[in-house]
């Protein structure tokens, strides 16, 4: 999951959790507020009454009667003042029932006793519970709506902001890491961001890439120089041996010795020139300007290699479309690529085996040539390594310097050709060479 998505999910989740908790607590909170407020109102009323009594005397209420009582039209509130019979002193607020004009109603009642001119009186101020809680429902609903719209609003802000915040990371991944081809080019532009972590990450990746580039360049330079420098001493040795071999008085054993040496030298020469070829491909010293018809190319190769097919009695089936044209390629290199693949298909084939070469148009611009043999196959564990230089095959009977497929790999990556290998031990191997036509 993307970092931005994760962040968003986390933010939205935590917001929802808090909101849910708040909504769960809301009835309780609203109740609490309502009853606090009621207590406050009741006390206010009590004080008002006490003020009036202090100013105007108790008769202001009683007016000669024994007691005073008053209530609103809907009986939501009432106030009562009467002489207090018992000795107890009261100053409480509690929920209790009262019967007013035959209706039994739940009230929240403030009871307060006080002395006036040495006579005890009891003041009661009451408010129906129904009226206290009448705003609970609308209040809760209103709070809920406000909350939901706040959540939606903040999540929208979060989406925009996290996107902006995480965008440089996406850029770093896209421009630096995804689909990179060796060697890395155009690494000068820095990612524009004010987040220090991203700047740091970007700089570190840039430094790393630079180091890899340098190491890669050094390695290529070394291969090129080493194999190049080897050519002169090999030439000298080769010419010396050739001159020695022409000596008429040479004994047969000396002659054979020289020949053996020449063979070894020849091997050294081939390795050097293979390495040189690889480094020339890697250094892009070949021009890709040819137009090649695969069928003509493959026919040329088969003509070159036919004698080897006969040695092993191998049947070869070439089945390619006539009208395919590969553009912007190097003919010699493609020749080498398929030559090496077919050469391997022969080398690792069994006596009287067969090789099939066929093509497919996979999509409007993807063209694939498959070289399939009936040879001994490659163990699954070996497949990832077959394109490495100087791979040692575990089968002792086949010589080879592990450079044929390394050359194939270099040519393929130089031409942006994909090669897939599938193999089954004892049954054969197939190499799929995938071209992009456009």
């Amino acid at each position, binding site marked *: 999951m993307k970092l931005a998505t994760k962040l968003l999910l986390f933010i939205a989740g935590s917001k929802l959790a808090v909101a849910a908790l708040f909504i769960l607590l809301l009835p309780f909170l609203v109740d609490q507020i309502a009853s606090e407020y009621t207590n406050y109102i009741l006390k206010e009323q009590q004080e008002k009454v006490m003020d009036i009594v202090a100013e105007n005397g108790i008769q202001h209420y009683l007016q000669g009667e024994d007691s005073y009582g008053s209530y609103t039209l809907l009986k939501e509130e009432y106030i009562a003042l009467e002489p207090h019979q018992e000795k107890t002193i009261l100053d409480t607020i509690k929920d209790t029932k009262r019967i007013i004009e035959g209706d039994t109603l739940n009230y929240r009642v403030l009871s307060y006793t006080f002395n006036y001119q040495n006579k005890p009186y009891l003041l009661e101020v009451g408010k129906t519970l129904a009226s206290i809680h009448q705003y609970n429902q609308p209040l809760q609903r209103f709070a809920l709506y406000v909350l939901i719209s706040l959540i939606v609003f903040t999540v929208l802000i979060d989406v925009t902001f996290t996107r902006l915040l995480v965008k440089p990371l996406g850029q770093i991944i896209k421009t630096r890491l995804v689909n990179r081809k060796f060697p890395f080019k155009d690494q000068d532009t820095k990612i524009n961001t004010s987040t220090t972590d991203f700047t740091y990450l970007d700089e570190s990746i840039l430094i790393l890439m630079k180091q890899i580039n340098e190491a890669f360049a050094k390695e290529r330079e070394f291969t090129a120089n080493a194999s*190049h420098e080897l050519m002169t001493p090999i*030439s000298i040795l080769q010419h010396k041996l050739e001159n020695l071999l022409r000596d008429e008085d040479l004994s047969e054993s000396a002659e054979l010795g020289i020949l053996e040496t020449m063979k070894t030298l020849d091997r050294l020469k081939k390795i050097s020139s293979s390495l040189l070829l690889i480094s020339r491909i890697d250094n892009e010293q070949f021009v890709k300007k040819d137009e090649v018809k695969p069928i003509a190319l493959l026919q040329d190769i088969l003509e070159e290699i036919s004698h080897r097919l006969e040695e092993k009695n191998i049947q070869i089936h070439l089945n390619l479309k006539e009208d395919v044209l590969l553009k912007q390629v190097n003919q010699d290199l493609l020749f080498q690529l398929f030559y090496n693949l077919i050469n391997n298909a022969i080398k690792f084939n069994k006596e009287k085996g067969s090789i099939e070469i066929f093509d497919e148009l996979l999509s409007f611009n993807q063209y694939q040539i498959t070289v399939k043999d009936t040879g001994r196959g490659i163990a699954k564990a070996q497949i990832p390594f077959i394109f490495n230089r100087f791979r040692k095959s575990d089968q002792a009977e086949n010589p080879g310097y592990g450079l044929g497929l390394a050359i194939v790999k270099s040519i393929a990556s130089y031409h942006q050709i994909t090669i897939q290998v599938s193999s089954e031990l004892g049954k054969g191997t197939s190499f799929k060479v995938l071209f992009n036509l456009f």
Partner: protein
Amino acid sequence: MKVLIIEDEKTLAYEMETFLKKAFYVCDLAHTFHDGLEKAQINSYDFILIDLGLPDGDGLDILKKIKKSHPEAVFIIITARGNLEDKITGLDLGADDYLAKPFYLLELQSRMQAIARRKFNVQDELLTIGDFEIDIQKRLVIHNKQEIELSRKEFDLLSYLLLHKNRVLTRMQLSEHIWGTFADVDYDSNYIDAHIKNIRKKLNVLASTEWLETVRGVGYRIRK
């Protein structure tokens, strides 16, 4: 035939000299750009072999400077550089051939012979061997006026052996002449044997090919 070898690697130059002397060429050696240029300007040569990477200059410049004054000479470029551009520049400047190091001396000799035949307009392109005649120019093998069809490689092989008749050629020398050095690492393969077998098969139908000898452990030879 007089040859100038301009090569800074002294040992290499000596070995080339040794080889060419045995083939009755007269050789001069130069190890630097200036020495080479001077020798080429003073003397006249039939062949000038130029190494491109000289310590005090590029061999191509020698070629540029002396090509006009020596129109008759054959220029062969010898180099460790195998770049296509180098080859093209060299040939464009008027070089007659181009050999990439390391090469077999035999290969050098036969290229020199081939160029000489062309350049000095040698008409005698018809070589005889046994009961067969070989037309190098038309690339034909003829027996009793009947043409025998050989494949391209088979003809190359036969004519190369014939050019170096009475000499044993190793499989490596033969394969390098026919296939070049373009990275085919299967040096052990016996494709030269396969070609020889085919040549014998095709010719033996008409006449004996005893002159084409297999030298055990070494290679092949045409004895005449």
